[in-house]
C-alpha cells in the first residue's frame, strides 16, 4: 500500500525500571515490513515496553532511551500523534459502534470515499456486507479481522502487537497469523510483537529478543 513511504522504528537503548529494579533493556532497529518479536514469561515487562513506545507508560515506571520513527523522536509526541497502531489479544471493537463505525473511527478525518474504503477493506478480509453489523454478533475470527482493518486504515507508521493471537483457537490462529503478517509486510510497516508463543515468533520470521 504505502511501502514507499514508511520508515524504520528505532528503539534506542530503552531501559525500563520499576521502583529501582530494572525490568528490561532493549536496543533494536525494526526495518519497514519487518516484525521484531520480543519473547518472555509473564511479568517480564513485555507489555510495559509497548506502553512506553505507544505513549501510555504508567508514571510508576521509570524509563530511559529513545524511540525514533525515521528521524522523528516519538517520545515528545502525545500518543495520538505518534502514528503507532496497537493490536491487543482482545479485538476491542467499540460496542457502541457498528462494524463500519469502528473502521471509520480510525480513518483520518479529511479523506474522501470513506464508505468505499471501508467496503474495500472488509471485502479484502472476507467480510463483505458486514458494514451495519453490531460487533457483538461477530465470531472471534471476524472481530479480529475487523480490528486489523481498523488498524490498517488508520494509516499507522508502525504497529505494536500484544499477544494478538493468544485468544484464538489453533486453526484460526494459523489463519490470523498469516493474514496479519502478510498485511503488515504488504503495507511495509515496522512491527513489534510481544508473545510467549514460539510459533508466533517463527511465523513472524524476524529477529527475536528474549526477555526475563
Amino acid at each position, binding site marked *: 500500500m504505502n511501502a514507499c513511504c514508511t520508515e524504520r522504528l528505532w528503539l534506542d537503548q530503552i531501559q525500563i525500571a520499576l521502583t529501582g529494579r530494572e525490568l528490561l533493556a532493549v536496543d533494536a532497529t525494526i526495518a519497514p515490513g519487518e516484525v521484531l518479536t520480543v519473547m518472555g514469561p509473564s511479568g517480564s515487562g513485555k507489555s510495559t515496553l509497548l506502553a512506553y513506545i*505507544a*505513549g*501510555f507508560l*504508567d*508514571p*510508576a515506571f521509570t524509563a530511559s532511551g529513545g524511540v525514533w520513527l525515521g528521524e522523528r523522536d516519538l517520545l515528545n509526541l*502525545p*500518543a*495520538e*500523534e*505518534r*502514528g*503507532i*497502531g*496497537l493490536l*491487543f489479544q*482482545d479485538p*476491542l471493537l*467499540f*460496542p*457502541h*459502534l*457498528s462494524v463500519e463505525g469502528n473502521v471509520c*473511527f*480510525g480513518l*483520518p478525518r479529511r479523506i474522501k470515499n470513506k464508505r468505499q474504503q471501508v467496503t474495500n477493506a472488509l471485502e479484502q478480509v472476507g467480510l463483505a456486507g458486514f458494514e*451495519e*453489523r*453490531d460487533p*457483538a*454478533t461477530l465470531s472471534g475470527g471476524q472481530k479480529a479481522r475487523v480490528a486489523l482493518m*481498523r*488498524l490498517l486504515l*488508520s494509516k*499507522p507508521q508502525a504497529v505494536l502487537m500484544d499477544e494478538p493471537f493468544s485468544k484464538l483457537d489453533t486453526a484460526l490462529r494459523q489463519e490470523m497469523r498469516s493474514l496479519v503478517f502478510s498485511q503488515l509486510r504488504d503495507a511495509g510497516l515496522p512491527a513489534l510483537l510481544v508473545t510467549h508463543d514460539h510459533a508466533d515468533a517463527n511465523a513472524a520470521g524476524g529477529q527475536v529478543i528474549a526477555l526475563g
Partner: protein
Amino acid sequence: MLRLAPAMIIALLVLPVGAGLMMVILPAFGYLPALGGHGISLTPWHMLFAQPGLGRSVAVSFASGLVSTAIALMMVVLFLAASRGTWLDRGIRRLVSPLLAVPHAAVAFGFAFLIAPSGLVARLVSPSLTGWERPPDALIVNDPWGVSLMAGLVLKEVPFLLLMSLAALPQLAPEKCLMLARSLGYAPTVAWLKTVLPSLYPLIRLPVYAVIAYATSVVDMAMILGPTLPPTLSVSILSWFNDPDISRRFMASAAAVLQLGVTLAALLSWWLLEQLTRLLARNWLTNGSRQQGEIMLRRVGRSALLMSSTTALAALVGLGLFSVAGFWRFPELLPQMLTLDHWQRSGPMLVTPLLNTALIGLISTTLATALVLATLENEHRQHLQPKRALWLLYLPLLVPQIAFLFGLIVAAESLSIRPQLSLVIAGHLLFVLPYVYLSLAEAYRRLDPRWLQVARSLGVSRHAAFWRVRLPLLLAPLLTAFAVGLAISIGQYLPTQLLGAGRVTTVTTEAVALAAGSNRRLIGVWALMQAVLPLIGFMLALAIPRLLSAQRREFAT
C-alpha cells in the same frame, strides 16, 4: 479546567458544611448580631435544658440511630452470608435499587398505613383472629419509644447497605474464599461470615457511619413515624427554628449543636461496639467451629431480609390502595369502592411541585454528574490514587443536615443570598454529589484502559476519546448514577424546606406537610407520586442502554 475539578468538589462539599456549622455554633453561645446577640453567653443552653422532655428526645434520637443501623446491618450481612446463589438472592438484587430509590417519606407513610390500628395489617387479621370490629385504641405509629420509627428506618437502610455491600464484594473475590473454607469443612453461611465478612466490613464502614448519622438526625421520617410528645431532637429543633419568637433561634442553635453531639456520641458508641465485636470475634474466627449455628443463621438470614423487602413493597401497595379508596369500613381488607376522585382533585395542585421537583433534580444532578466526571477524568489522566480525599465526600452525609443547614441560611443571608430556587438547587447538589460519585467511580476506574489506548493509537485526541469512547462505553453506569442522583434529590425534605424558606414546594415537601393532617387518601396520592418519580428515572436508566443496543442488533441479520 479539568485540574480544578477535584478542588472544586472539595470546596463545594467542605465550605457549605463548615460555614453552616460555624453559623450554628456562634448563635448557640449567644452571638448573632443580626438578631441582636452581641456577646457570648450560656443563656441558649440554659433555655434548652429547661425544655420539658429534652432527655427523652435525645434518648430516642440516639437509640433509634444505633438500633436501626445495627438491625439493618445484621440483616444485610446474614442475608449475604446465607443466600448466595439462591433465587432469593437474585430476586432481591433486582429489587434493591428500586427500593433504595423510594424516598424516606413515602416509605414512612406506606409503613404507617400498614401498621396503624386501622391499617392493612390490622384489617388482615380482623375480626377473624383479633375479634376487633373497630380499630383498637392503641398508639402504634408515633409510639413514645420510637419503635415504629426504628422499623421504618430499617426498611430504608437495608437496601442502602445491601447496595453498598454488593458494590464492594466483587473486589474481594468472595467465591474463592468460600470455596477454600468449604473445602476445609466449613458450612456455607459460617464460611462466609468467617472469611468474607472481616474483609467486607472495612469497605462498607463509611456507608454504615453515614447511615448512623442520618438515622440519629432524620426529620421527615421522624415527623411521620416518630414520637410526638416529645418528638425526636431533630424535629424539636425544626419547630424551635421556625418559632415566631426570634429568641428561640438561639436555643435552637444550641439544640443543633447538641444534635451534632448526639450524632457524634452515636458514632463513637458504634466505634466502641466495633472494637468489642472485633475482640469477641477474634477467638470465634479461628476456634475451628465449622457447622455450629449454620441452620439458624441461614433461616434468619433469608427470612429477615425477605420480610423487610416484602414490607417495603406492601407499604407501596398500601399507598396505592389508599390513594384510590372510596368508602372503606374498618375490618374490610379492601375498600368497598374505588375512585379516582383524590387524584383528580390533587391534579391541579400537583403541577407546580412536580415542575419544581423535576427542575431541582435535573439541574442539581446534571451539575453533580459533570463535576464527578471531570474529577474522575482528571484522576485518570494524572494517574492519581483516589483513596485519600474519599472521606470528604461523606462529609455532608456524616454531619447531620439539621445541624448545618440553618447555619448555611444565616451564612447565605449575610452574603445577601435570599432563600430561593437556586439556593435549593445548590443545597441539593451537596447531597446529590456524593451519591453520584459513589455510584459512578467504581465503573469509571474499572473500564479497561486499552479501550482508550486503542482510540488514541487510531489518532484520536484524549479529549475526543473521552466523548467518543469513554462516555458511550460508560452509558449504562452513567445513567444509573444519574438516576441515583435524581432519586436523592427528589427525596430531600429538609434542604428543600429550609433553603427555599418553605416557598419552593416539591412533591416531598408537600407530602410531608400532609403528615400533620390525617387525610390518608390525599397522603396516598402524594406519597405515591413521590415514590413513582425516582422509579421512572431508574426504569429509563435501565431501558435506554437496552434500547440502543437492540437498535444496533436489528442490522445483525
